[in-house]
C-alpha cells in the first residue's frame, strides 16, 4: 500500500531524514516512534505530499505522491498534530467545507459525527471546544471521504486519559474496516496497543522495524524487580531474569527474611527505545 525507497530530506544543509526505506501493507497499522527531531513528522509530511523528498520516492497504492498528489489526496486522510480547524466556525461548518470539497453527502457528515459522538456539539464553535473534542473533529474531517490510508500525527498527545482511550478505541474500529493506518506517537504503550508493526526513528534513520513483540525479544530484557531490607533501609534492585546469579540472590533474600516484594518485569517498547536511541521516552 505504501512504499518508501531511499527517501531523504534535507533542510538547507541539515539532513532531517536519511535514506529511509520501508513499506506498509494494506490494512496494517504502522507505528512510527522516535524522540523529538527524529524525523517522524517530516517523513509523514513527505508521505502526505506536503513536503517534497530531496531524494528517493514514495509510492502509495502504486502511485508516486510527488507526481499524483491530487489523485492520492482523494485516497488519504490526515489527522495533524495541531488542531488545524477553523476556530471561528462550528464543528458542522468545518466538516461541511471539506465534505463539499470532497463531494461527500451531508448524510455521510452526519454519519461520521454520530460515530464520534459529535452530533450534540455540531453547532458549537471550535474555539470553545476542549482539545479532546477538537481531536474528534480532526478525525471526523479526515474520515469524511472514507480514505484508504489514514495518517495520524500524535493523535492522543496532550489528551486526558479518557479522551485518549476513546480515540484509541476509535482507531481500532477504523482498523477493522480495513483502513491502512500510519501513526506517529511518543506513547510506547499506545504504539504497542495499536500497531501491527513499529518503526523506530533516530536522527533521521530507521533504527529498528518489526512487530512490537519481536522488537522486545530482540532488544529488551526481562527482569526480576525486588524490594528488600538491608541495614534498616529499603533497597530496590532489578536482576536479569535469564541470569544464573539471579536465583541465588533471590533465594538468599527470601531465606534471610529480607524480601519485601518480588515482581517479574517484561521488556517494554520503552526499553527497546532506550537501547536503540540511548534515551528514555514517555
Amino acid at each position, binding site marked *: 500500500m505504501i512504499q518508501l525507497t531511499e527517501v531523504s530530506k534535507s533542510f538547507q544543509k541539515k539532513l532531517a531524514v536519511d535514506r529511509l526505506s520501508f513499506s506498509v501493507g494494506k490494512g496494517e497499522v504502522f507505528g512510527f516512534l522516535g524522540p523529538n527531531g527524529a524525523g517522524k513528522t517530516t517523513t509523514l509530511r513527505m508521505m502526505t505530499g506536503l513536503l517534497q523528498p530531496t531524494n528517493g520516492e514514495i509510492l502509495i497504492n502504486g502511485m508516486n505522491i510527488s507526481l499524483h498528489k491530487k489523485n492520492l*489526496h482523494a485516497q488519504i486522510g*490526515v489527522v495533524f498534530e495541531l488542531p488545524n480547524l*477553523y476556530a471561528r466556525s462550528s464543528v458542522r461548518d468545518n466538516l461541511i467545507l471539506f465534505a463539499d470539497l*470532497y463531494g461527500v453527502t451531508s448524510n455521510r457528515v452526519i454519519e461520521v459525527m454520530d460515530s464520534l459522538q459529535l452530533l450534540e456539539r455540531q453547532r458549537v464553535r471550535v474555539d470553545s471546544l476542549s482539545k479532546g473534542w477538537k481531536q474528534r473533529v480532526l478525525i471526523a474531517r479526515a474520515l469524511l471521504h472514507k480514505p484508504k490510508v489514514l495518517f495520524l500525527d500524535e493523535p492522543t498527545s496532550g489528551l486526558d486519559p479518557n479522551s485518549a482511550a476513546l480515540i484509541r478505541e476509535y482507531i481500532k474500529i477504523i482498523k477493522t474496516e480495513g483502513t491502512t493506518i500510519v501513526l506517529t506517537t511518543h506513547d510506547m504503550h499506545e504504539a504497542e496497543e495499536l500497531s501491527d508493526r513499529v518503526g523506530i526513528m533516530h536522527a533521521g534513520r530507521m533504527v529498528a522495524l518489526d512487530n512490537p513483540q519481536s522488537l522486545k525479544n530482540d532488544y529488551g530484557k526481562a527482569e526480576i524487580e525486588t524490594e528488600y531490607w538491608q541495614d534498616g533501609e529499603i533497597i530496590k534492585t532489578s536482576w536479569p531474569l535469564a541470569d544464573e546469579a539471579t536465583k541465588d540472590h533471590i533465594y538468599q533474600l527470601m531465606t534471610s527474611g529480607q524480601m519485601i516484594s518480588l515482581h517479574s518485569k517484561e521488556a517494554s517498547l520503552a526499553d527497546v527505545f532506550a537501547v536503540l536511541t540511548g534515551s528514555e521516552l514517555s
Partner: protein
Amino acid sequence: MNNVLKLTQHEFRDLLRNPSIIILVVLPIFMSKVIITVMDQSGLNFMLLSTWILFAQVMVGIMITGPGLIEERESKTFDALLISPLSKGQIIVAKGLTVLILSLLSQTIVFLLNYGLSWAFWPSLLYMILGGIVFVEMGIIIGFLVNSSQNGSAVSSAVMIIFFLVVTVYEALPNWTYPFFVAWPSIEISQNLNSILKGDGLLLMESLLLPLWIVGLSLWISRIGEE
C-alpha cells in the same frame, strides 16, 4: 472552479465572524466621510476621493490578506486545504477573491457615500478592481514570505503606509520626479481616478502599467508557491 467558489464562500463567512476584519472594511468608509466633509467645509483641495478609494484598497487588500494567510500557515489550516482536492493555485485564488470582494465593497461604499452614483462610477470601478487585485496580491506575497503573525502585521502596516503615503506627498514634489513615481501602482490608480472624476478620461501609461504589476506579482506568487 466549483471548489474555488465553495472555499470562497466559506472564507467569506469565516472572515465576517472576525470583528477586526469588519473594522478594517468599515474604517476607510468612516474616515473618508469625516475627512472629505472637513476638507470640503474648509475649502482645502487635499485628501480627495481617489485617496480614500486607494486607502480602502491598501487597507483591506494588504492588512486582511497578509496577516490572514500567516495565521492560516501558523495554525496549519493551510495544510488541511493542501491535502484536500484543491490545488495550491485554487486555494490562493479563493483566498484572494474573498478579500477582493471585501475590498470592492469598501471602495464602492467610499465612492457612493462621498460622490453619489454617477457615470464616473463605472470607469472608476475598473481601477477599483485592478487596484484591489494589486494590493491583494501584495498581501498574499507578505503572507507567504513572513513567518510570524507579529512580523506579518508590522510588515503589512509598513507596506500599506508606504503605498498610501506616496500618493499624499508626490504632488508636492517637483514635476520631474513624476516619471519615477508613476511606476508606483498607488500613483497609477489615484491619477486615473482623479482624471475620471474631473471628466478627463483614462490615462494611457498609468493604465497600462497596472496590468504589468498584476502579471509581475502573479508570477512572483506562483514562484513562491513552487518553492
